[in-house]
């Protein structure tokens, strides 16, 4: 066997070399056969791309190995610095460093970030604050553009000299490029400071929605500059264009979202390519919107938002995990690359520095942002139930970071129409640097200083979920009694419409009938079941009574002794028959359709029902019996009390419904490792014996 392998290997090598030699050797001359030759041009493009991505990833890796640095400086700053260094290096080597190509940026680097943001957009806070977000996005950006454009024009007039040639239209165009809050930069900085949900969604939502305004204004001013003169009719058309761009983008996204949801209904037999549909439909939505100069960002967001609830109900949870991780991975790489390229492009130039222009731009950016936010908040607070305080306004104003989108838009300007393009680019880069470095670095200590509310740790609580739903119905009812159609009324109507018609079409099988409370409960169950297993393997059987019972649901740390772990593993290994079946095929064409789910439902329904009865009796009805040996009772109590309470009887319902459906764990729970443990523990003899004995005792008592 071994000999055969060696011979085959040798033959293979020889063949390879021969072919290699043949491809590269020149048929004309009879020189010696080259065993090894270099052909870099063949692989240059993919090679360089891979090298850049590898560099970006290694940088990211490096930063997290230096916690001191990453605690103080936001990652985006570090990446720009790296970009500067790399650019400098390339320049020193004599070559011209590459500039961030706008087409590459808009078509390859930006979509993953936006899709990631849109797919995981928290819908409830978004819709509750939609009015505020839209006001900031539309009116705020318009105010910024015109204020900046006008004041800059005035300053240029006053300055004379080199700036005299900058006309109003150019100033307005410059204003429109530089005043839009950038989602990439906002995400990069806000992710690290963990402020409360409201502020996060306000700034982030604004950065997403102002894309429509930016696109319209940019094209508008560009057209005007090209045409040379502006009429009132053009202005009016501009306003119409805005609505077309925004609503058109959303519609395109919505259509693709519905298509994706509908497609996912039928993918139960081809689970492997499910994530691909999500990505492809979203990307197509983006590209289709860009074809018509509609807002691609809004299309992408709309697609993600529309398709998510239905797709998640249809796909397996492995696909869900895949989607989540791929999106995070791509968006992370994109973000890193964008910031590095920003640094490199800065070194590449060309630059035209003008102290007046640049300094006025920076001052104006801050000023117009602050004025805009304060003014708009004054108006908005009249209509909000939860008013925005001064602290909130400050964070919203301070969090208006500019980023790579501004740079790319400026880069796209044609030098013929805008002879000041270089000056604009320089100014924009300076603004970006200023906002990312100064504002990005100082926002964290400022948040601490002002004691802004941080993000709550979301505890998965079934009580909170029940009451949140209860409140929704209650408020809708009270609105009905009072007779006016408010926010809750419309949401109620939308929910009913959704449930009755849309879910039936887009969600396959019986899941379309499942209420939200039940799916939430399942999610929680899954999480708790896996945590139960994790803590089971770490529970110390003899010290149950003395184990401190935390009043909060704290996670138990795994500090098992090695011997205990080995014992447990031995028990588990002895019952691996179910696992063997699952490991049978690795070929992707014969991937088992979620075999674990079936095993779960059948065996667990029995087990969980018994567990449930046991714990119910322990807590709720008759006092627990006394005669049980301390070790076993200790085992019951040693599970952290929060964990002791979660069997999932739900599996017992309509078993046929749970064939090849995925579970949807809470997002922050990593299922990959624990999932392997689960099937093994199902056949754990220890637990079953325990249950049977307890069961008998219960029957005796009753």
């Amino acid at each position, binding site marked *: 066997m071994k000999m055969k392998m060696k011979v085959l290997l040798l033959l293979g090598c020889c063949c390879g070399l021969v072919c290699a030699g043949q491809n590269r050797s020149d048929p004309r001359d009879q020189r010696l056969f080259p065993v090894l030759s270099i052909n870099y041009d063949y692989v240059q493009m993919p090679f360089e791309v891979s090298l850049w991505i590898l560099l970006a990833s290694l940088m990211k890796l490096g930063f997290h190995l230096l916690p001191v640095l990453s605690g103080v400086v936001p990652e985006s700053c570090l990446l720009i610095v790296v970009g500067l260094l790399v650019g400098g290096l390339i320049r020193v080597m004599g070559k011209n460093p590459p500039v961030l190509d706008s087409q590459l940026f808009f078509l390859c680097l930006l979509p993953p970030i936006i899709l990631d943001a849109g797919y995981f957009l928290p819908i409830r806070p978004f819709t509750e604050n939609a009015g505020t977000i839209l006001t900031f996005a539309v009116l705020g950006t318009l105010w910024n553009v015109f204020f900046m454009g006008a004041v800059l024009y005035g300053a240029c007039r006053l300055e004379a000299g080199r700036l005299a040639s900058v006309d109003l239209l150019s100033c307005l165009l410059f204003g429109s490029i530089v005043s839009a809050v950038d989602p990439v930069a906002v995400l990069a900085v806000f992710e690290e400071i963990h402020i409360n949900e409201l502020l996060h969604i306000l700034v982030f939502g604004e950065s997403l929605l102002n894309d429509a305004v930016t696109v319209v204004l940019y094209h508008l001013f560009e057209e005007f500059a090209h045409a040379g003169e502006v009429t009132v009719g053009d202005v009016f058309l501009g306003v119409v264009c805005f609505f077309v761009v925004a609503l058109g983008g959303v519609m395109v996204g919505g259509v693709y979202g519905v298509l994706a949801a509908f497609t996912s209904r039928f993918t139960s037999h081809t689970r492997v390519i499910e994530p691909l549909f999500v990505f492809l439909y979203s990307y197509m939505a983006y590209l289709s919107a860009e074809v018509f100069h509609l807002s691609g960002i809004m299309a992408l967001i709309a697609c993600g938002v529309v398709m998510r609830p239905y797709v998640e109900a249809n796909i397996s949870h492995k696909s869900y995990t895949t989607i989540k991780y791929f999106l995070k991975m791509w968006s992370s790489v994109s973000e890193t690359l964008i910031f590095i390229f920003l640094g490199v492009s800065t070194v590449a130039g060309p630059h035209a520095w003008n102290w007046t222009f640049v300094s006025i731009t920076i001052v104006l950016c801050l000023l117009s942002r602050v004025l805009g936010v304060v003014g708009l908040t004054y108006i908005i*607070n009249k209509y909000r*139930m*939860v*008013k925005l305080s001064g602290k909130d306004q400050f964070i919203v104003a301070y969090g208006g970071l500019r980023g790579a989108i501004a740079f790319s838009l400026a880069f796209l300007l044609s030098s013929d129409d805008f002879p000041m393009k270089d000056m604009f680019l320089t100014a924009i880069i300076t603004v970006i640097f200023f906002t990312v470095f100064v504002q990005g670095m100082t926002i964290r200590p400022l948040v601490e200083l002002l004691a802004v509310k941080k993000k*709550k740790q979301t*505890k998965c609580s*079934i*009580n*909170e979920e*029940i*009451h*949140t*739903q*209860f*409140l929704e*119905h*209650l*408020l*809708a*009812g*009270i*609105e*009905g*009694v*009072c*007779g*006016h159609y*408010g*926010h*809750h*009324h419309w949401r109620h109507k939308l929910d009913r419409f959704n*449930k009755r018609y849309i879910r039936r079409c887009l969600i396959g099988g019986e899941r379309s009938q499942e*209420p939200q*409370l*039940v799916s939430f*409960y399942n999610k929680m169950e899954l999480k708790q079941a896996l945590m139960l297993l994790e803590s089971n393997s770490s529970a110390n059987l003899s010290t149950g009574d003395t184990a401190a*019972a*935390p*009043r909060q*649901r704290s996670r138990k740390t795994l500090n098992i002794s090695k011997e205990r772990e080995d014992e447990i593993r031995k028990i588990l290994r002895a019952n691996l028959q179910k696992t063997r079946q699952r490991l049978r095929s690795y070929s992707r064409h014969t991937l088992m359709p979620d075999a674990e789910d079936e095993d779960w439902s059948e065996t667990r329904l029995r087990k969980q029902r018994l567990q*449930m009865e046991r*714990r*119910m009796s322990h*807590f*709720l*009805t008759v*006092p*627990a019996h*006394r005669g049980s040996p301390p070790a076993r009772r200790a085992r019951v*109590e040693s599970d952290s*009390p*929060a964990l*002791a*309470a*979660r*069997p*999932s*009887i*739900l599996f017992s*319902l309509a078993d046929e419904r749970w064939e090849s459906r995925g579970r949807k764990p809470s997002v922050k729970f990593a299922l990959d490792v624990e999932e392997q443990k689960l099937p093994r523990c199902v056949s754990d003899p220890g637990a079953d014996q325990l249950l049977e004995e307890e069961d008998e005792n219960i029957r005796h008592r009753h």
Partner: protein
Amino acid sequence: MGASQSGPVHMFQDLAYKTGFSIEQIKNLHNRFIYLTQAEDTLRREHLENVSDLALNPIRRQIIEAFFDKRNMGEKEKGCLQEIGFEEFVTVLSFFRPPKPHTVDEEMKNIKKEKLRFLFNMHDTDNDGIITLDEYRRVVEELLSSYEIMGAETAKAITDAAMLEVASVTVGQMGPDEFYEGITFEQFMQILKDVEIETKMNIHFWNLDTRTVQCGK
């Protein structure tokens, strides 16, 4: 109705002072009250049941009961009324008034407590101060009642899990002889302290005239 002009205005001012609504809002609510009762003096359950929006609401029974619950009227009594006047109507609705801006923290805590008390009373139908398993189960069943195919098993399972969660969070490790009776008001406040009731349990009482809104039949 024959009352003099100053009578209702005086009453409105009293109510505004007591409940915190503005005079405009009280006037609008009064119009609504008259619309609901069809110009009778008192509101009965049938009037509320005629509101078409409520018909599709899964928890309408509890909402209607809340209007007639004496505990919500600020009295220490328990029990239900058969019919209520305008004053009680506004009192119940004042639980949903958004807190005024610049409210101090202490006051916010009180407001939150009151709102939670309202919710608690809605669940605790037998007035004994404790939400028992059965009462909670009924709540969950009603919430799920709009989905026809759900059986009683689901509600039971969810309720059990919820009760156990409350027990584990508030009481923690229990001795072998104890058993858990039900959720008291303090425990209720504790488990819902993160829900930010004071900002969520509000509806907008516009200063607009709602007379023109065609709602109901």
